[in-house]
């Protein structure tokens, strides 16, 4: 069975004293489905704090949702038997947001790769393992000799993030959960990175859940997109449709806020921060009023 990953009515609440009812709801009634085949790229966009990372953690089984369920191959991931659990772990792998904290500063970076080799029995001999690792590093355009044997602090952010990609390349999971993998990178490296992801989809048939707040990257990747705000998915569809005919005002705002790398296309409208903070359907109507009085 080529698997599928499904979120069904996932809700995640956090205990928070000092809030009116004692809880904040980070994710509310989110449902969607990721299919392993045909391989696809599904993007999840939303502003900071909208619940994107929480969904990623739910999908990865790092956090049990308060309500609803995450299903892998039709079964709740928190109720899998051993074999199913192994398959799930094998199939669903992350690329995390922060390329700095993802490495244990105590160890050399290759440990992450060797761990993957050992835990998932990718190679039977050391030599085979090394070959696999080098292959994967090359696939993400890293020179093995420049990375292997180094400590995390000796690598740049882009290099580190690519090591995570190499890990995924090696593991060939059906699903990559990539939580803002490019937010820390500059344009060139970012482009590289996105190309690698696209490559994974085409060459290795991996499905990616791509989480970001940056619509331009989403546009670059194409595929499907879901727009999330305040824990709820407010709009979904193919990138082309959503980008060209955004139906939700929030999507429109996001689109509008991308700084166009063209000095001739400067913003002509202004938005206000306090309006952003109370962003909902009512106020959003006039959030982008032209020539609104300066902040």
């Amino acid at each position: 069975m080529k698997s599928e990953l499904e979120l069904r009515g996932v809700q995640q609440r956090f205990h928070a004293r000092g809030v009116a009812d004692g809880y904040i709801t980070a994710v509310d009634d989110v449902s969607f489905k990721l299919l392993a085949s045909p391989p696809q790229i599904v993007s999840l966009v939303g502003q900071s704090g909208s619940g994107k990372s929480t969904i990623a953690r739910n999908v990865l089984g790092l956090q049990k949702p308060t309500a609803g369920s995450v299903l892998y191959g039709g079964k709740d991931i928190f109720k899998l038997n051993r074999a199913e659990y192994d398959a799930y772990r094998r199939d669903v792998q992350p690329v995390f947001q922060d390329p700095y904290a993802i490495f244990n500063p105590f160890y050399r970076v290759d440990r992450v790769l060797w761990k993957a080799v050992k835990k998932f029995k990718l190679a039977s001999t050391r030599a085979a393992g090394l070959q696999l690792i080098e292959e994967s590093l090359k696939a993400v355009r890293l020179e093995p000799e420049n990375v292997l044997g180094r400590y995390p602090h000796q690598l740049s952010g882009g290099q580190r993030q690519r090591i995570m990609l190499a890990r995924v390349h090696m593991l060939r999971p059906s699903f990559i959960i990539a939580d803002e993998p490019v937010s820390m990178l500059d344009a060139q490296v970012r482009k590289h990175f996105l190309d690698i992801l696209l490559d994974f989809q085409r060459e290795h048939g991996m499905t990616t859940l791509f989480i970001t707040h940056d619509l331009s990257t989403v546009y670059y990747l194409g595929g499907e997109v879901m727009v999330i705000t305040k824990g709820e998915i407010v709009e979904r569809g193919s990138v082309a449709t959503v980008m060209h005919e955004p139906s939700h005002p929030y999507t429109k705002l996001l689109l509008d806020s991308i700084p166009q790398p063209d000095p001739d296309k400067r913003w002509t409208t202004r938005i206000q921060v306090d309006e952003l903070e109370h962003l909902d359907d009512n106020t959003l109507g006039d959030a982008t009023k032209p020539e609104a009085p300066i902040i």
Partner: protein
Amino acid sequence: MPMRILRAVLRTIRNSRRLAMGLVILGVLVLVALFSPLIAKAIGGGQDPIELAAYDKWQVPGPSHLLGTDQFGRDVFAMVVKALAVSLQIGAIAGVISTVVGVIVAFVAGYKGGWIDNVLSTFTGILLVIPTFPLLIALSAYAKNVSLFQVGVMISIFAWPFAAKTIRSQVLSLRTRPYVDLARVSKARDLEIITTELLPNLLPFIGVGFASSALGAIFGLVGLEIIGLGPGGVIDLGQIIYSAISTGALTLGAWPMFVVPVGLLTLLFAALNMVNIGLEEVYNPRLRGVAGE
């Protein structure tokens, strides 16, 4: 893994002059302690130099007794050397036990969280505020025929909460690190995560816990001896100091009985502190290059 730790240690030492110096001093003290039986033998020249009435009492320092003799005619130099071994031993015993217990409790509490954490933290908090001195006496009066090891164990009972508290708060902050999540999705189990991901990063804190427990134990022992509940038949540095105090050695002019053990203990503290600070410097990137003076 051990190789890796060793390498990390070497790397660490290279990075801190203070750490290296602390380790050298510690090393010398440990060596002296290890060779103490031989040194004592050499001093005694066939006779046990710390047997009661081995020599005349209260001899001034001189060629035959480098640091003189005490009120029972024992060679003070031999006593100090032997006592150093005992003090280091008790420090090591209590340091190891309380660090191990403290680390385990801290990890269970910090990593598991929830009610386990609540219970363990409250218990730790409770033990932390009980003044240890009276309890130590009660305990050591209770255990019949205490040995050095048992005293070490007793002292550890009250030393571990301190280590546990410091380490727990570190575990709390470390366990939400992304690399822990990465380990989890790499199918690592809790125990493995604790030992391979968290533990190495806590080495400096464990070092601090170890050092303060060890120092606490060395002084706990002095306290016990002052009220006559120390382990039988051994002499430690604290006891020599105590006996210098109670016999009024200072006014007699028998300064070595006071100055030498106090000096050695101070050296020991300084070395342990240097190791601690060195470790912190090396492991806290922000302190790197900053703390060195």
